[in-house]
């Protein structure tokens, strides 16, 4: 549905010289990104701040031009037809008026050449129907996010690009948002949704793309990424009565805090391999387990595993991203 081939875009960073005060050098951005978005997929775009998630979304939405590489959108031959297929929600639009949500949506309906009633319906859909005539300056951040989402849904786009859409949404709205995305995906729309928190997207996305330093460091379903990176090696177990006396060789055992009515709890880390169903069943048939779950990998862990950087360095390495003259 949407394909990026060796896509590169880098923001120019000013480096004035004595005789060339306007000189710039290539700064942060995205480099050599290959991505294939299939129909009906919800793709989670994850990475630390400055990884290039927003830039990638802006490139996909045709806001930023590619310096190198290709962007192909199925069924779109011109830039305008491409934009008709794509709905884009930027990160934190501050919508501070003057004007109302209704006026804003009607303005965008005019730009898309679609009927105002469709815009009004979308305001109802995102829960702003009763506040549509209120001044935007009275809106909370969550309401502004809803309005941004409504604008992205205008024209029934086949591809939806959402930049940090969960920021500012309350848990109820987040639930409704997840349901809406699933409905859109079931109808064949493709969704790309970015977040700097992996756990935010675990319940929404079918596949993930992990970004760091403007490059894709891993992609695919989360369990496949974790398996490839060797992150399925940690298991938390807890239970009642006597704990298992032995866990076998090659397993590192660590005590962890007990939860309600638990007599024991451990974190088990395999030195090699992953916790397959067979390995789990070998943990001890006499013990009564109340908890037996894979430990979800944090974003830092995944990035660290994918890049080979220390966890402490993985988050802050972006600061040294600007490269010398190329």
């Amino acid at each position, binding site marked *: 549905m949407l394909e990026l081939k060796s896509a590169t875009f880098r923001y120019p960073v000013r480096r004035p010289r004595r005789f060339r005060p306007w000189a710039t050098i290539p700064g942060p951005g995205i480099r050599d990104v290959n991505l294939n978005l299939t129909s009906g997929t919800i793709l989670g775009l994850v990475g630390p701040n400055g990884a290039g998630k927003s830039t990638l979304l802006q490139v996909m939405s045709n806001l930023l031009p590619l310096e190198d590489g290709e962007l192909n959108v199925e069924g779109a031959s011109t830039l305008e037809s491409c934009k008709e297929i794509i709905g884009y929600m930027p990160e934190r639009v501050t919508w501070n008026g003057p004007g109302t949500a209704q006026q804003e949506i*009607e303005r965008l309906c005019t730009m898309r050449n679609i009927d105002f009633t469709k815009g009004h319906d979308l305001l109802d859909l995102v829960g702003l129907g009763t506040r549509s005539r209120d001044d935007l300056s009275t809106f909370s951040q969550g309401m502004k996010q809803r309005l941004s989402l409504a604008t992205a849904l205008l024209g029934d786009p086949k591809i939806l690009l959402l930049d940090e859409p969960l920021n500012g949404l309350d848990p109820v709205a987040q639930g409704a948002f997840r349901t809406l995305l699933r409905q859109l995906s079931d109808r064949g729309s493709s969704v790309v949704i970015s977040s700097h928190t992996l756990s935010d997207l675990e319940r929404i996305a079918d596949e993930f793309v992990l970004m760091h330093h403007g490059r894709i460091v891993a992609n695919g379903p989360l369990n496949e990424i974790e398996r490839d990176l060797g992150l399925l090696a940690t298991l938390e177990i807890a239970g009642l009565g006597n704990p298992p006396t032995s866990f076998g060789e090659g397993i590192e055992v660590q005590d962890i805090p007990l939860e309600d009515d638990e007599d024991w709890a451990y974190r088990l880390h395999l030195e090699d391999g992953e916790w397959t169903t067979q390995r789990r069943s070998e943990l001890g048939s006499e013990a009564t387990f109340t908890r037996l779950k894979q430990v979800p990998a944090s974003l830092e862990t995944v990035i660290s595993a994918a890049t080979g950087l220390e966890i402490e360095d993985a988050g802050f390495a972006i600061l040294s991203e600007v490269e010398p003259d190329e």
Partner: protein
Amino acid sequence: MSDRLQSIWAVGLHDAKRRVRSQRMLILAPLVIFLLCAACWGFADSRIVPAGLVVNSPADVLFLSSTSIVFICTLSVVLLGFDAISKRRLTGELAIDLTQPMPRSDYALSQLLGVWLSAMLPTIIGIFIGTFLIQRQMGVWPALGDLSMFIISTGLLLWWYTSLQLLASSMARDIGASVTLGVGTWLFFVFLWLIPTLVIAQSMGVDVTDTTSLAFDRIQERIDLFSPNGVYQLLMETRLSSASQPHLSKISIWISAIVWSILPTYVFCSRIKHLKP
């Protein structure tokens, strides 16, 4: 083509309506209307016209009233349009606008149209009320040709300032810089234009101590072709009596007006085409 024009008009009209309802319009509109009416009323009364000014006809009154257009209406364009692009860019709304399936050049034209229409509304109201006041003071209506020229020239002048202001707004990284660029441009053309005129005239060997001399008048007219206010004044002078007509040919004045209408607009559209929100 007509679909594109309709779309530009619809978005421009939408933006204009929002600006007309804005708080700053509540302040600016009465000022613009009041000043235009006061100018028409005052210049049409021979008893209170400042010494040295000759007012023989409604065309003369319209010409003299055009000074208030140069001062207040151009400033109102600056104040209405300084945040047209820069604010939307800062809030993220521009990114949403630019992802809509509307060509960026059309979007740029709709933004120009929105600011221009909102600035034109109080100006047109002021001009029409002023016309009635001229008739009341002098007992004659301004000729249709004179009035049409006054409105067309004023519309062009406001379009030129709109394109300059929106260009400034699109170049500025913050709203403060946008205001500074806009007001700076306005100050340069309204108050400081005489300085480059004098410098150029002096360098060409014209005596600048006598600004009423024919030689200075001729060189000033030529230099004025490079200023929006100058071209506006020259356009207005073409409707005056033969003694007050500009020395330049009408064609050169109109060519300058066309260049002023196209060039900043083209630069602004080009800027929006390549803008990274």
